[in-house]
């Protein structure tokens, strides 16, 4: 088999969903930090979102599986800690998909810009933490619905 270019590999990785938020890909999330061939080995550097996030090992496995399914036998997923992951690395596409899915995307101001459901702006924080390490819980006073906010990190 001819060796696929790293650009092709990036495209393939952009089809690997985040296990917790399947509407965005691991590339959208900004955790794939590098793709390179070293000899016959394809090296993929991945950085964790939160240091204790249980999805991290699942993500590494999903990436490996996806690339093996494409016919790449020799894959090495490595962990890269520095520079530390930041929500600034979320892609624009990823941010839009998050909002469509009902999760308000992160903002440096520290809270959601608008309710992802009704676009209301009278918002109240319920808790700094949510169902996964990367989310907080908010509520919209207009539609009265609670929603997830992707924490800014």
């Amino acid at each position, binding site marked *: 088999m001819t060796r696929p270019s790293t650009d092709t590999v990036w495209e393939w990785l952009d089809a690997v969903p985040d296990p917790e938020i399947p509407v965005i890909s691991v590339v959208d999330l900004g955790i794939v930090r590098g793709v390179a061939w070293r000899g016959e080995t394809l090296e993929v550097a991945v950085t*964790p979102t*939160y*240091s*204790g*996030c*249980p999805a991290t090992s699942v993500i590494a496995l999903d990436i490996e599986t996806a690339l093996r399914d494409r016919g790449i036998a020799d894959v090495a997923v490595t962990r890269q*800690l*520095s*520079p*530390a*992951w*930041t929500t600034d690395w979320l892609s624009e596409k990823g941010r839009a998909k998050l909002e469509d899915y009902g999760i308000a995307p992160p903002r440096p101001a520290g809270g959601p810009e608008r309710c992802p459901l009704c676009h209301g702006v009278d918002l109240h924080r*319920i*808790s*700094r*933490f*949510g*169902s996964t*390490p990367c989310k907080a*819980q908010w509520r919209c006073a207009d539609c009265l619905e609670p929603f997830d906010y992707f*924490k800014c*990190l």
Partner: protein
Amino acid sequence: MSGSAPVDGAVGPEGDTRFEYLLRLGDNALVLGHRLSEWCGRGPVLEEDIALANTALDLIGGAQMWLGYAAEVEGSGRSADDLAFLRDVWDFRNLLLVERPNGDFGHTMMRQFLFDAFHVPLLGALSGSADPRIAEIAEKASKEARYHLERSAETVVALGDGTEESHARMQAALDALWPYAGEMLRADAVDEAIAAAGLGADPATLAPGWERTVRATLDEATLAVPEGDFAHTGGKSGARHSEHLGPMLAQMQWLQRAYPGASW
């Protein structure tokens, strides 16, 4: 590793000092993380339950990184899991503060706040460590620790400046935990050797920042800072852990002890 407890502040040769210091960082995160996980399913409200579990997760993630590096530095083939699950009380190097039992929710949050106010500047200083591995782990953990501090400080203020009942409980928690804060802020020979080598921070240099954060928050929480600077010591040196660490480890380690090598 020998099973005998060293005297306060004992230092071995160079490599051992770094191992010792990494154990302190890892064990603080591990023991506090486990303590917080004891709340899982028992929090006063669902949101707080989730918040405590999330904080525990961050800390245990940090412990994995610190202990993983400690095991590499030690170089005797042990893993982070071996260090977490197969050491006994006298080999742990965590602060006495973090092994204190949870008490009520306010007590847990006061313990968390006193630690977070130290953890944030500590990790900030370690981000500039001459050891790049220490620096990168600290950089990662420090973003999470800042979030922990925002929340624990906010909760201390809400409960301290809350009802008569919550205020009384927070004051009682502060009075009970205060004598355990001093150990964080006083350097011993390991801290000094690590600081001199540019690897870590001398806790004494972090004390003024800690004190500013703590006094400002407690003031806002209408809580009275206890007088006196008596401090229990012996946690980070391993010389005198309290009677509470053993039962906690029994709970945390029983599976690996009963079924060695078990995994899923």
